[in-house]
């Protein structure tokens, strides 16, 4: 008999929207029962592109198909007293509520943490927002780029002589949903030990700050203020190793990086004696522009796959700048079975990203995203 799923028996009410849905997806993938509570018309993510064949349809948004795998769906209008009553009736049967409706939204409808805890004493409730539920910015209107800005992450992305540039899509919101999943599981662990629930207040701004990984501490202790530095390392002294950057090659781009143990490998691989000039090797970062030029002679003669093959053969940690289309047909991911084909009643068979990780004893399962209100009868027994 197969083992039960890792999160079997854990029941979650998911009132998140857009990219914040990733938290519930993670819980559902490992076996929790996650019921999406959608507003009339559906979660905004259902109305966000890309759509299959570019035809807007609440069932075929690629974002929805990916971010809501494994969930159930019911529609409840939390501005309608009858639906609020139905929601309250569900709470005692659920372990966890995750939401992203904004500071004060649920409390104004009698559905704040204190209200819900009265219905289920050991409830774990997790709120995700761009800035947090309390504090001077709690009433602010959020957006991905705004959280990115207030975290100091935006200012460090881009070229020094150009404006800061936002990272692709909703990376910050995605990180806040991931933080919410971790925090919620910490609370589940504690609840299993003490019997007590908890309320977690997640800030997307802080999730972006967490991604910074060191510049704030370096400023505090060393007084060194990180500035955006293109694709080179944020901090480097004249004698820091170089390259670590993205460079153009024949028909594409590669990430080039040295092996600091054998500093002469670059020159050998690229047949550029000047790369092994003692002065350049002693202070490579001081000669970064010259190194770029010398590397360019060789890089422009090889396409990215060839650059990486030749570099890796010498233990130089080069990688390709891959495009999404290349990722979708990548041999490595194919051999590992990363992509899965999911059969959806409206979208048909769709190839999409699979597990975020392999738990060999209690495997991840990618089950299709729900249709809007698909599970109404099942969830609302008297609905």
């Amino acid at each position, binding site marked *: 008999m197969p083992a039960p799923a890792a999160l079997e028996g854990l029941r979650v009410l998911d009132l998140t929207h857009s990219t914040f849905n990733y938290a519930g997806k993670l819980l559902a993938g490992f076996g929790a029962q996650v019921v999406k509570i959608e507003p009339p018309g559906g979660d905004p993510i259902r109305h966000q592109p*890309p759509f299959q064949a570019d035809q807007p349809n609440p069932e075929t948004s690629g974002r929805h198909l990916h971010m809501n795998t494994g969930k159930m769906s019911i529609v409840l209008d939390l501005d309608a007293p009858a639906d609020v009553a139905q929601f309250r009736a569900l709470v005692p049967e659920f372990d966890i509520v995750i939401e992203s409706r904004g500071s004060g939204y649920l409390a104004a409808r009698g559905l704040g943490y204190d209200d819900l805890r009265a219905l289920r004493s050991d409830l774990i409730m997790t709120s995700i927002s761009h800035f947090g539920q309390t504090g001077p910015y709690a009433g602010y209107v959020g957006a991905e780029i705004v959280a990115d800005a207030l975290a100091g992450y935006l200012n460090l992305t881009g070229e020094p002589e150009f404006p800061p540039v936002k990272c692709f899509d909703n990376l910050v919101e995605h990180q806040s949903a991931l933080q919410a999943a971790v925090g919620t599981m910490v609370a589940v662990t504690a609840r299993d030990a003490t019997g007590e629930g908890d309320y977690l207040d997640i800030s997307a701004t802080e999730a972006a700050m967490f991604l910074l990984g*060191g510049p704030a501490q370096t400023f505090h202790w060393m007084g060194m203020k990180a500035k955006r530095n293109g694709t080179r390392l944020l901090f480097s002294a004249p004698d820091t190793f170089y390259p670590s950057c993205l460079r153009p090659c024949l028909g594409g781009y590669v990430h080039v990086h040295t092996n600091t143990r054998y500093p002469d490998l670059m020159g050998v691989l690229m047949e550029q004696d000047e790369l092994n000039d003692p002065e350049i090797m002693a202070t490579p970062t001081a000669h970064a522009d010259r190194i770029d030029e010398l590397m360019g002679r060789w890089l422009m003669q090889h396409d990215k796959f060839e650059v990486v093959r030749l570099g890796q053969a010498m233990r130089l940690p080069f990688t390709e700048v891959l495009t999404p289309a290349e990722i979708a047909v990548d041999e490595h991911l194919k051999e590992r079975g990363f992509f899965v084909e999911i059969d959806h009643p409206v979208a048909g068979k769709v190839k999409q990203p699979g597990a975020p990780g392999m738990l060999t004893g209690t495997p991840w399962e990618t089950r299709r995203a729900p249709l809007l209100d698909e599970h109404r009868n099942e969830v609302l027994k008297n609905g």
Partner: protein
Amino acid sequence: MAKALQGIRVLEMTIAVAGPVCCHILGDMGAEVIKVEEPMSRARTPMHLPKPVEGAPDHPYNRVVNFNELNRSKRLLSLNVAKPEGRDIYLKLAAQCDVMVENFAPRVVGNLGIDYESVKKVNPGIIYVSMPAFGKTGPYKDRGSYGPGIDAMSGISHLTGYPEGAPGKPANFFCDQNAGLHAAFAILTALRHKRRTGEGQYIEMSMLEGELQAVAPAIMDVTLNGREGNRVGNRHHWYAPHGVYPCAGEDRWAAIAVTSDEQWQALCGAIGRTDLAADPRYTKQADRHAHQEPLDDAISAWTKDLEPYEVQKRLQAVGVPAGAVLQVDELFSDPQLQHRGSFAWADHPELGPFPHTRTAWISKQGNYGVTPAGPTFGSANDRVLRELLSMSSGEIDELVSAGVTSYEPVGGGEGRGH
């Protein structure tokens, strides 16, 4: 009050960033984290260091800033696992742990004799986590890589940057914290299974596959429509106006996102351009999206004489998403981050109060927090060798003489301090 993960013991055998991040998260939440490092693994006299706090011993190797940030809430065991006695101690310790985390190239743990099969023999209930860059199988399994190189393979580099420019790099990097968080989530999930069944398991968290979760919207456009996405700078796929706008001062900017037609009307009022508010060419989002440049110019003309925080204040007052593009020093004084205590200050024995970037939540129970002791060299030696493995002083002295453990870094020399 007991911390959330009190009683859970984690054995960490990791380097670089992703593994350390995973384990400091567990440590911040109250798990006992013992990180193994080789006696020769770090520079004895690194450069670029903060000064020691008055009266503290002068141990430069304990003052490396990034190391302290990434390894807070842990204690360090100095152990040479490549020696047979070191491996023996490692396995005896693993037998008393709930979780082990490693992030070496696939062949390394096998060569050291601390792979899953070896550890499982001494501890069948272990949750054993590997965090390879690309996975332990597949054509790329033996590739060497660093954070920005994994970001490059994930599509994030291709999709980040100015449309007319080259691929970009997400600030410092993205893949490491993303992988650390995913691994922490996987461990907490496996711990629940273990509480219910007693069973441990092997977990493999590929950094690349964790990162592709965030790139999914672009990948889905390929699989649904065969369309290859590209860089859009600070523009948004459907909102407009959307971007960063120049402010007073050098390299100062504010981020603004107009996410509804109502917000557009409010923005026009705030910047004194009621003419634009009344212009039928711009009242609908799709029309604004098709004509962004004149709108960006109008906004820039207003922002250019204002401080970033002033733009934020005036636009948020009328319900328009806006925020200052903060520079790294300003994170310490931003009122919202101060209100939430986004930096967890913990006392380091040789540096004094250290501001650690907290995980992104605060909770009512408050049953977590960075451990104040600081990850000083050899700080877990006595805990492991004397308390957990009941060794005598004589036995420990022999291990020190044999180079199996150490109470200060051996060899080393100069190195970089941050």
